[in-house]
């Protein structure tokens, strides 16, 4: 995050060489007393290692900001420093600021200022994980020769410069995120001169001088009588310090003290008064809001009125030049480069974001929850993304009826983990990283499907924001037509801000992974199809095959869940599958559903390009289908081929009860290829067998896919709702259904 303009207060501690634990205790006291920041002073001849202490402080505090001060020694590699700082920022959840200074010039240290500049440059490059290639850098002091970038810190760690030589001041003005200096009674003029030079340099480099805030260390004595700068009563301190803030652009005061009494008096009597006084004296635009770096402004895309982003969203909006952009530009399977990502935290913010997006009708608009869209283009190029990932609460509304409210940004593994303590589960899919928003508006074909239906079959109500910005609730009793449409085609009608589900009681489950011989692929598929249809509803299995592997027998990977905690039942259910063909590998475990879903730890949304997939829903695996599928698999056109068992409870629901209408299917088939035309051509052979498609797994952009996803009666009904609720096609990133010519083209 870029610097905000409010005044903050820090504590500057001198570490003790024999009792560093005292320093830790002071930092903790500082946190309790309301200080925003703690730093460790570097005393000449100091032997205690400040970084170790600061890391320990990070581990023994919760909230307080951490200002690390580094002297650039030629022997220390900025690449390693970058990693250390990123780690501390990650471990402390974004609490770090880093100040760099030169060490005394010496035989080993002949270019101290270059050392600082090079350190700054190298750290920034190591953190720029969105940039291509490795880091190469040749300086006078440091050389980097192809280092891998990363890790990036948790937030945009400000890099400050300490020092008052003209070279360092210019460097601070040109490149730094702030200047750290010291003020005492006699050095005020030097401070002002330094500050002025920094301001001029910043402007000369096309920067806003406010991009280089001033952080100053102060030291003083509380006494009953006035005796010079910061010597006197609390009120005298306020008199001395206020001009620094109001007239000289100081944003942070660091109190250097070893005495707890001084610390506390400052926290209780000086800091609050300065905060109040500053907020009434500082000009309005410096009190709130966020200052974006000039380098970021230079990367804005055309056609977006960035300066009109609603107040509510200013703090959390991410632009292409912002630190967080590399983390949000792409999704799990798709590369993107949007012009603006609006992160919403409340329904009000969703309404505001949608209103802003609607002022840009010519730009692509993507709605994103978990970022695992395949059909859903939840990123774009140059357009707007409304990102709901921060809206991820999971609340139990009523234990007796197992009613649970889930926000769209939650992930299915988190949902599973939250329900487990109640002995409940909600069927979702095979991957815990998938988000609730995209899946629960489309279907939800999961491992409990045959026994418990689709995810949408458990949906009882939704809260939505519609295209016109209105907020509605849809259920079986209100906005019923919308409620029907949301369950299968939800992405077309608005932004769901909360889902209410009735979840099921589910105990531990049997979880099996079997590697089976599939040399005769067609025969294998057919047998698996029969076995799967014949299995009781408590058993749902997904089958995966990869491309042919040279000189090795074809192998099928079977993942099966048995909704039973009884080992004998589990074995009995799995045996017919194990009998299909020779077994290469097997693992069967009894575990909570949530443990099966916990399979997406630490993943990141670093997709590139576009996923190339096709989907089909199938009633039975006939010999003819099996033969065609076997040919497709052996052709090498697909690198991932999966058939999932559906049917069972999913088929109990009437076709017209929800917009997901293909209820007769017993199988969902999906193929991933690397080449659009080639996959589409190969798919032609399978196409005649299908009764329809699951839209979530379909990426063919041709409009006739719409009629695969929705049978004619469903599509006609969806068009009516679309015409009524979204006549301008605001929502068009995932199977948009109001292409006017489509009805004629396909009927």
């Amino acid at each position, binding site marked *: 995050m870029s610097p905000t303009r409010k005044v903050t207060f820090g504590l500057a501690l001198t570490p003790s*060489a*024999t009792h*560093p*634990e005292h320093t*830790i205790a002071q930092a903790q006291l500082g946190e309790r007393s309301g200080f925003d920041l703690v730093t460790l002073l570097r005393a000449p*001849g100091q*032997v*205690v*290692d400040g*970084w*170790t*202490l600061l*890391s*320990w*402080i*990070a*581990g*023994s505090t919760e909230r307080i900001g951490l200002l690390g001060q580094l002297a650039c*020694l030629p*022997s*220390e*590699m*900025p*690449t*390693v420093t970058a*990693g*250390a700082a*990123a*780690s*501390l920022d*990650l*471990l*402390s*959840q974004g609490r770090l600021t880093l100040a760099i200074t030169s060490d005394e010039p010496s035989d080993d240290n002949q270019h101290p200022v270059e050392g600082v500049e090079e350190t700054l440059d190298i750290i920034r490059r190591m953190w720029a*994980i969105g940039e291509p290639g*490795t880091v190469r850098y040749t300086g006078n002091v*440091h*050389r*980097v*020769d*192809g*280092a*891998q*970038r*990363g*890790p990036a810190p*948790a937030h945009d760690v400000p890099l400050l410069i300490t020092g008052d030589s003209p070279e360092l001041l210019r460097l601070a003005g040109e490149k730094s995120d702030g200047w750290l200096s010291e003020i005492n009674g006699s050095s005020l003029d030097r401070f002002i001169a330094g500050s002025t030079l920094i301001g001029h340099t910043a402007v000369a480099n096309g920067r806003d001088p406010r991009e280089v805030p001033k952080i100053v260390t102060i030291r003083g004595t509380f006494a009953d009588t006035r005796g010079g700068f910061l010597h006197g009563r609390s009120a005298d301190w306020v008199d001395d310090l206020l001009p620094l803030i109001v007239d000289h652009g100081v944003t942070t005061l660091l109190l250097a003290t070893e005495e707890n009494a001084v610390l506390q008096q400052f926290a209780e009597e000086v800091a609050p008064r300065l905060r109040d006084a500053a907020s009434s004296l500082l000009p309005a635009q410096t009190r709130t809001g966020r200052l974006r770096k000039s380098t970021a402004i230079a990367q804005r895309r055309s056609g977006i009125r960035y300066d009109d982003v609603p107040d509510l969203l200013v703090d959390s909006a991410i632009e292409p030049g912002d630190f967080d952009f590399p983390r949000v530009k792409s999704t799990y399977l798709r590369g993107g480069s949007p012009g603006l990502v609006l992160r919403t935290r409340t329904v009000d913010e969703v309404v505001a974001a949608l209103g802003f997006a609607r002022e840009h009708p010519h730009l692509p608009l993507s709605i994103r929850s978990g970022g695992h869209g395949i059909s859903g283009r939840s990123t774009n190029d140059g357009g707007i993304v409304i990102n709901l990932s921060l809206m991820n609460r999971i609340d139990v509304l009523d234990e007796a009826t197992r009613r649970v409210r889930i926000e769209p940004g939650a992930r299915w593994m988190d949902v599973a983990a939250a329900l487990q303590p109640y002995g409940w589960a909600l069927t979702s899919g095979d991957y815990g990283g998938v988000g609730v928003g995209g899946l629960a508006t489309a279907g939800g074909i999961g491992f409990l499907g045959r026994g418990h239906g689709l995810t949408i079959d458990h949906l009882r109500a939704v809260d939505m924001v519609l295209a016109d910005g209105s907020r509605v609730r849809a259920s079986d009793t209100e906005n019923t037509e919308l409620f029907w449409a949301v369950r299968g085609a939800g992405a077309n009608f608005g932004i769901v801000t909360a889902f209410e589900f009735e979840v099921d009681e589910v105990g531990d489950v049997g979880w099996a992974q079997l590697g089976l011989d599939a040399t005769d692929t067609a025969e294998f598929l057919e047998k698996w199809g029969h076995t799967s249809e014949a299995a009781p509803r408590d058993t749902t299995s997904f089958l995966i095959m990869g491309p042919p592997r040279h000189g090795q027998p074809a192998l099928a990977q079977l993942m099966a869940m048995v909704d039973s905690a009884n080992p004998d039942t589990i074995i009995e259910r799995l045996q017919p599958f194990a009998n299909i063909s020779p077994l290469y590998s097997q693992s069967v475990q009894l575990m909570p559903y949530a443990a099966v879903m916990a399979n997406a*730890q*630490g993943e*990141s949304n670093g997709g590139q390009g576009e996923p190339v997939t096709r989907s089909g829903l199938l009633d039975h695996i006939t010999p003819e289908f099996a033969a065609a599928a076997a040919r497709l698999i052996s052709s090498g056109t697909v690198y991932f081929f999966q058939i999932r068992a559906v049917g069972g409870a999913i088929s109990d629901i009437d076709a017209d009860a929800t917009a997901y209408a293909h209820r007769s299917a017993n199988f969902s088939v999906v193929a991933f290829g690397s080449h659009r035309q080639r996959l589409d051509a190969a798919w032609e052979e399978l196409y005649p067998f299908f009764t329809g498609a699951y839209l979530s797994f379909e990426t063919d952009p041709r409009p006739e896919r719409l009629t695969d996803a929705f049978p004619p009666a469903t599509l006609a009904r969806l068009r009516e709702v679309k015409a009524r609720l979204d006549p301008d096609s605001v929502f068009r990133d995932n199977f948009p259904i109001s292409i006017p010519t489509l009805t004629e083209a396909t009927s």
Partner: protein
Amino acid sequence: MIDYGHDLLFGAFITPTNSPPMHAVDMAIAADRAGLDLATFQDHPYQPSFHDTWTLLSYAAARTERIRLSGNVLNLPLRDPAVLARSAASLDLLSGGRFELGIGAGGFWDAIEAMGGRRLTPGQSIEALEEAIRIFRGIWATDATGRLVVDGSFYRVNGAKRGPKPAHDIGVWVGAYKPRILRMTGRAADGWLPSLAYLPGGPRDLTAMNAHIDEGATRAGRDPRSIRRLLNISGQFSATGRGLLVGPPEQWVDQLTGIALEYGISGFIVTADDEATIQLFAEVAAGVRRQVAAERG
């Protein structure tokens, strides 16, 4: 049968992954609660998916109560030995004597050079490590008179102030495999920390390696028993036994007891990135302790 006469230590070798950021810390806390003696992390500063091991050690030490922490092993070529010595002493002080210094001469030289480190031959890297150990001990020797001077070919310290004084006698444990560095370990270190996975002949290789350490120690006038022998291990807990360290906990107990008694290993550090493994290994630890104590009599 060799017995160097150390009490047994059991620890966890935890991947210092930075995603999710707290994983490694949580594992260290789990190991602490389970009653293991050591939480250790490898150190590869050029690996973007890992935390900086020093920062992680300091943070994890603050979050734990009782367990000792160590790099397994720290990467000397990317760390300044004088800074490392002061950092180690600082962490030892803060943690009340819970820090041990596992250190290695460096291995992935392409990656080290890419980061701005100096490429050394294996021979040079051993010499550099021995110089670094002199610097560690010199910085920690706050009772010695005069400032520290080490005039090595790789590291030079010219009159540095000593200190801080660690809370306990920090063990310098070297990750080593080849005869030359094993002899150096015998000459200069307090412990030896190899990984079983890198021994082509399995535990049997330990006999010859121990002999090199013993030789190095004896030649330097040290008692070979003053060098603790530890071993990184990995395996799998499963219902049925299938070879070395794949099987039920009782089988692990027998096998580790055998290695302890046969090769004088007094520290076992298991690859553990989940709580279940940590728990089971704590059970194994209790079993091995009992059996070894019974055998030692």
